[in-house]
């Protein structure tokens, strides 16, 4: 198991969580989003299964280890997903939970030029924000959001470096409902 914190604030943001969790696996930092881009991480959490030959067999699962019941507040372990992971560990290529080519293609769509221009503007905006120019970063963040509305990574990171209402004229609840953005998370789809 490897975890990667895709967070522009790097260790300053991630350290309290990594330390509190007493993690024994490699807990890595990707403050420039280099690796998040390579895996086309459009929101977090996003989990990938990689087999012994280095091939992706499941991609982009929006997975939490625990679930919280909104009405009762009760927290339960996400047994359904953990069972799927255990099935893969036990059965490998014969697991029922591997994604076929069609489902992998849906989770990892081919990029077009607008997508990679969006990435460049997101990188530039992040650089400016982290160097004390948060107001000047907005034009680049907004361009990235317009070119790649389905990337919640670009939005959520940008919002966290500013003020969503003041800078973007929206709220988290409103933004999530915007049909241009598509779903916040893909369906988990353990079928």
């Amino acid at each position, binding site marked *: 198991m*490897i975890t990667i914190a*895709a967070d522009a604030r790097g260790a300053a943001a*991630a350290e309290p969580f*990594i330390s509190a969790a007493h993690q024994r696996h490699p807990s890595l930092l990707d403050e420039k989003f280099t690796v998040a881009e390579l895996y086309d991480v459009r929101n977090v959490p996003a989990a*990938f299964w990689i087999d012994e030959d280095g091939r992706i067999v499941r991609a982009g699962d929006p997975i939490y280890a625990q679930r919280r019941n909104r009405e009762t507040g009760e927290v339960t372990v996400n047994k359904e997903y953990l069972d799927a992971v255990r099935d893969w560990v036990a059965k490998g290529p014969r697991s029922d939970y591997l994604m076929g080519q069609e489902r*992998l293609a849906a989770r990892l769509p081919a*990029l077009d030029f607008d997508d990679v221009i969006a990435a460049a*503007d997101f990188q530039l905006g992040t650089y*400016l924000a982290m160097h004390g120019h948060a107001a000047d970063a907005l034009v680049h963040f907004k361009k990235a959001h317009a070119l790649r509305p389905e990337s919640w990574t670009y939005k959520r990171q940008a919002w966290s470096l500013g003020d969503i209402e003041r800078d973007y004229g929206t709220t988290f609840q409103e933004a999530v409902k915007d049909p241009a953005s598509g779903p916040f998370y893909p369906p988990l789809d353990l079928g």
Partner: protein
Amino acid sequence: MAGATLLYQGTEYHPEGARLDGDELWLTLPDLTSATGWELKPEGVCKDEICVPVPAARRSALIHEGASGSEFDVTEFARLIEQPFAHDEKHGVWDFGPPGWEWKTRLASREAPEFALPDLTGHVHTLSRLRGNKIFLLFWATW
């Protein structure tokens, strides 16, 4: 132009002799190689195993032979290799992404991309080091 900053596929560089001409960013040949890894050779613009031939029709748009040495237009080269870039005029910062042959085929093979990232202590971990194991890879963030 003073104080240009290049973010070239994640690496930051401050060229000494950058010149801005409209939307074009010109670098000296030593800056070109230091900032981007690309080097002008007789066979083309080369980095590692790759050489991009310079089409005769675009040569004058890519290379200027000036009195104080040659200059190379990295923005025009980016267009040639379908490399995305973004520019902030006020701060003189440029971000260049990967060339077209990288982003167009990214993840198409379903091979997990190799990476090298540090942990909190600065120790660098690679994916390939764990080859032969099943790997559960999880991206998260505090935002």
